[in-house]
């Protein structure tokens, strides 16, 4: 399991850094262009996703009490966090 987490960790780290580089490039280009940023705040219902993430966190912790394998859920999900942040850079729409 340690080897798997190590390999997945390297992959998540690579995605993160690729995203970071893209985000940094976009930030510099946007700054140089100086185009005014829109001020609209979109209407979006976040309640469902918020509830799912809160409940999921509680469930993951509770599952650890039902079997030793669930101890690795935390480290694996931490890698998802790194990958998720990297993904966020690719999902964002730059103002270029």
């Amino acid at each position, binding site marked *: 399991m340690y080897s798997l987490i190590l390999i997945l*960790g*390297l992959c998540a780290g690579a995605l993160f850094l690729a995203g970071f580089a893209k985000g940094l490039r976009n930030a510099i280009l946007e700054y140089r262009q100086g185009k005014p940023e829109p001020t609209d705040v979109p209407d979006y219902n976040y309640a469902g*996703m*918020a509830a799912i993430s809160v409940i999921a966190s509680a469930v993951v*912790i509770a599952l*650890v009490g039902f079997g030793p394998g669930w101890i690795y859920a935390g*480290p694996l999900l931490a890698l998802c*966090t790194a990958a998720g*942040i990297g993904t966020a850079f690719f999902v964002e729409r730059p103002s270029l």
Partner: protein
Amino acid sequence: MDKSIFAAMPTLTPTLGFASMIGLGLFSLVLSYGVKTLLVRNTHDFIIADRRVGFGFGVGSVIAVWTWAMAVMMSSAMTYKWGLSGLFWFVVPNGFAVIAMIPFARVLRKNMPEGYTISEFIQYRFNKSKVATAIVTLTMIFGIILEILINLKGTSVVVSTVFGIDWKTATVVGIICVMAYSYFGGLWTSVMTGTLNTLMVTVPAAIVVAAVYDKIPGGTQAVYDAVGRAGAQNLSVLRPDAAAGFGITLAFGLLAATVSDQTFWQKVWAIKSRDVGRTFLWAGALFYPIPICLGMLGLVGIATGLTPSDIGGDIAAVGPYIVSHVGLPLTLVILYVLVILAACYSTIDGASSALSSIVAVDIVKRYFPSTAEGRLFAITKLSVLLGGIIATVIVLSGIDFTTLVLTTYALKTSILLPLVLAILWPKTNTVGFVGGVIAAIGIGMPIYETAGELPGTLSIVAIGGLTVVICGLIGSERFDVTKLRRVSDEIASPSVGAAE
């Protein structure tokens, strides 16, 4: 399984400790100088990043400022003390507190797009009431000092536990490392170094925790069985004593820690308006795995029968102790130290940046409005150092900063509901807001002192909220939140050619 599996590592020398602290600081300094050169021309860029922080940096930096030394070390400590119930009550409200910012962030970003600080909002919301704005400004400053202080303490705890460095030396070296790079670049530096630090608290943390379990004879099965033998309640999330002992109080405290914290409000106005909502959603959701992952070290502490005296008396050191004594390769121990340092540095940096926004907008521009941009920029940059200096003096003095903790806690919890209602309820008036905060502290804190944390916290929140509601129902005022759109940008970017 018992604690005989632990042994001190002689290779963990003070030199390695200093190298870790200074190395991380130097890396951030190089990045910071690049940021300053490419992205920062004036005070507006320094304190609000020209309102161009994108979705990726937004998510990364919000997670970074919320991942305190507490999230990294206390997740292990609370699991060690209360079992899975401790982890449950520590983790679940933690991520929720970030997500809970969303409705308030969207209202203010939509209706006050040129804002900088929550104190500024209060100023315009309550007709420039000096008392209301003073209360909020003071609360924000106390909160920032406390954030820096706790994370500075966290830095010195881990470095002294793992490397045997004198805690005072570790404190001074740590704060110099952070202040050196925070000074350049302001919020952009904080956002970018913070995002990189989030990489540190995820991937290396996952690898180290997996390595610890790989090192323990019998692995996860042995730990799981030993934790169960130590007490069946350790594997349950339903311990009522954990909820009453710290869980419910912590939940309110965490909510107050985000909603009543300029570190987050600064992000609200710095992130692109179209991304504000989803940034806090993703940040809250993606934050969860970090303390869950590190909390698994607490189970090792239970399984091996470690006692607080084994780990130096402070249960916050259970994670650092386990990692540095279970026999991991030196590289992984250093990696764990960098995880904690990254968490501490990014929070101190974020708090210092928030302090600079308060100084620029709520102090200099408010009381000395004719201050020229050049002078304002210089003062703003210097103010980044101020919080660090004050926090360092407090830590080094050795005084028990429980009083500061309690004062800040009282202020933040007492303004929580009045602030929420000020944002969301048009009938909230100045008398109710100020009266609510004063009543919450004046009546609620004595209850906290005499009846305990849980009744005290519930009293503070209830009294604050009830006072606002009663005064609002009695009063006839009705605030039109769209009026805030007329609030101009107080620190607008000067025209091209203006001197720095």
